[in-house]
């Protein structure tokens, strides 16, 4: 049963990366979109694109935490004790990002929009870096078992963490750019489609280069993970590379469809590859999933929630995305102007 919960945990990480990650990635493009004049057009598209969905996407992170602390509490304690600093930075970054995104939409003054916009965009880059660094610290075996604190500094400032952090930023930026191409086409905005298509191609190249460098870093710094990726995780790595390259070809050819799905598979399969590579360990080489697992009563409750989520949340989530993609969630409020209020 702990295996099933571990799979659920991994899928939640994938969902957070491909849905929530893209919202962070959009923040990256917002950050480098240039001054208020030049960057207005892409920023408007970004706002329109992630506005209705970012909060729902964000809940995947809460799911990850909840599964972790109910099903593998000892590992959760080790992780939070060891990776205290990057987790704190990520938490504060999430507050700054969510709040300033909501504020930016709600204010009109250019000055205020710039302040909130800068806070939103900067924290959008900071948070995925921290998440990647955290993943790197765990994957390279720097978090000890037994609810103990590991090295508070080198657990997240180390070669694997740095490469994972940079890779996370690049990958979410890539995903976001690919999604934004699609959104721009849907809104019949060829300028923006081209704008983000070019950026998606560059980002794909960057992700590829970082991934290539990462191979050597993992080999030197995270041997267990590297061996896992090079053996049982290899098919997934190959799948990821194939999908990434195909998506790149489609983007270069300006193909009408296909790139989005391939990009998602490329990112998802590398994350699943990470999970497969460090199997059976939750904390590599010190704590396995089965040793870390809670009593069966708790795992049953968690799986019951997953089943309920499949019944309740997934249809709602699909509904939200379908409505959004059909343009039925255009913006907050309505167009018409009601008659002036009558006195009581």
């Amino acid at each position, binding site marked *: 049963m702990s295996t099933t919960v571990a799979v659920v945990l991994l899928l939640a990480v994938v969902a957070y990366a491909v849905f929530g990650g893209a919202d962070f990635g959009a923040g990256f493009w917002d950050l480098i979109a240039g001054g208020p004049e030049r960057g207005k057009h892409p920023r408007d*598209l970004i706002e329109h694109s992630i*506005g*209705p*969905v970012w909060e729902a996407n*964000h*809940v995947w*992170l*809460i799911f990850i935490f*909840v599964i972790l*602390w*109910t*099903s593998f*509490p*000892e590992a*959760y*304690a080790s992780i*939070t004790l060891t990776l205290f600093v990057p*987790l*704190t930075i990520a*938490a*504060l970054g*999430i*507050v*700054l*990002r*969510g*709040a*300033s*995104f*909501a504020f930016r939409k*709600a204010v*009109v*003054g*250019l000055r205020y929009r710039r302040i*909130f916009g800068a806070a939103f965009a900067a924290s959008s880059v900071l948070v995925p870096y921290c998440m990647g660094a955290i993943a790197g610290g765990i994957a390279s075996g720097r978090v000890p078992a037994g*609810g103990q604190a590991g090295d508070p500094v080198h657990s997240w400032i180390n070669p694997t963490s740095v490469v994972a952090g940079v890779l996370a930023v690049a990958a979410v930026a890539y995903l976001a750019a690919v999604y934004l191409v699609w959104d721009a086409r849907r809104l019949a905005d060829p300028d923006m489609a081209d704008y983000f298509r070019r950026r998606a191609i560059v980002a794909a190249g960057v992700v590829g280069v970082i991934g290539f460098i990462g191979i050597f870093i993992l080999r030197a710094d995270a041997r267990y993970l590297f061996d896992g990726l090079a053996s049982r995780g290899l098919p997934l790595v190959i799948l990821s590379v194939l999908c990434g390259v195909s998506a790149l070809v489609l983007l270069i050819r300006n193909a009408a469809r296909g790139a989005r799905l391939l990009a998602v598979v490329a990112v998802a399969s590398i994350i699943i590859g990470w999970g497969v590579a460090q199997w059976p360990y939750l904390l590599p080489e010190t704590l396995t999933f089965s040793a870390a697992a*809670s*009593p*069966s009563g*708790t795992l049953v409750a*968690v799986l019951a*929630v997953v089943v*309920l989520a499949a019944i*309740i*949340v997934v249809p*709602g*989530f699909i509904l*939200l995305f379908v*409505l959004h993609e059909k343009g*039925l*969630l255009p*913006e*907050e*409020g*309505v*167009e018409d102007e*009601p*008659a*002036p*209020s009558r006195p009581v």
Partner: protein
Amino acid sequence: MTATLSALTAILEVNPVPWARAQMAFTLGFHIILVPLGVSWAFMTLIANYRGIRHNDRDALTLAQRWSKFMAVTFAVGAVTGTVLTFEFGLLWPRFMGRWGEAFGVPFAFEGLFFFTEAIFIAIYIFGWRRLNPWAHFWTGVPIVLAGIFGSISVVAANAWMNAPSGFELDSNGNVIKVDPIEVIFNDSMPWQAAHMVIAAYLVGGFLVASVYAVGMLRGRRDRYHYLGFVIAFTVGAVATPIQMGVGDGLARWVYNNQPVKFAAIELVPTTSSDVPETLLGRLNEDGTVSGGIPIPGLASWLSDPSTGRATVVQGLDTVPPDQRPTVRQTNIVHLCWDIMVGLGTLLFLLAVWYALSWVFRRRMPQTKLFLWAAAAAGPAAVIAMEAGWVVTEVGRQPWIVYNLMKVEDAVTANTGVWITFFAVVILYALVGTATILVLRGMSRRFRHAEGFTDQDTPYGPSALTKEVSATEEEAIR
């Protein structure tokens, strides 16, 4: 160099217990203000929305639309500050989570489910005004209300479990080896605490929203729009108040029966006795005596169990060793907050009675300025009462994090830099809190200037592409 560094590290190494406590209290205290808005505002919005469609009431519809825009902001801030709490469980209390996560965590799994539902439908509702069919759109709001209620029940179930831990078995080393999730969620304290919090959400949300319109009416904005905004919200708060007093009474009796030490702190009872007075204000001294305050003879005993009246015995603080009960300072905090909660609750009840009597006898809300002033104060008062009530339950449980099983000092993180994160959090939240209020005020002014609901209200989406930001609008946001 190394010496300087180690000296610096020594300075930075501060006992994390008080700072972790302070940070948790601060972030929860901040988040709990947004909770009522997330839970009950959607309900009020749906009332206005229903009226708007059913009776073709344009004012009600405008109200619902504007409320949903405000909700978008408060929900976003609530969502992210709630996320911080999930980080903090581990960052501040890793040993608590490591040892009890398998039991304590279970209600949160369900909370995640409801929060997800809420986030999905609030997005559909807020963004769906223009293109969805009016009734279909209305129904997308209903899951928000339900998810809000069940979500807060789930969170409070976890807190209730800390007061009444159950549904698990321990081995000889004190590790949890068996968990019964149903018993964890439906622990003894859960029904009372959950009801108390959900009703609090309606009470606080109602009075808080109403107070904004009361201020508007006092400033002479006595149009139908303000009237509707006030009446819908205030009625929700007023209906919740008497129910809340009943539930609160039941919860207090549960505490009397199950957490006698917390009850002794609430009622300021140093030694076990019968005929215990209800002391209004007053304080406990280090030597165990009570000074100051206005004692009402026998009332605490009588309220604890009316069937035995003034003869009811109330257990005193000294029945447990000092290290198993709140300190004198904590006891005084608990007692003062109890008085504040009950006192403000009673005043809100009187205000609700005034409102109800006016409707019964005059068929309209009270028109006097005095009432509007009181109604304007009711929002902040309700928030203070809720915060005070939360302090009673949390500080009253001290020194335990899991009642009678684990102490706070054994649960805390080993990281000595918590004081730094405390200040970082306080600064960030102060900025976010200030910005939230300014943004909401700016929106409200913009709505008034616009005299209606136009596309330019919230610059958003492709339509904003053609829009230039004018100087007057820049002014309007300030």
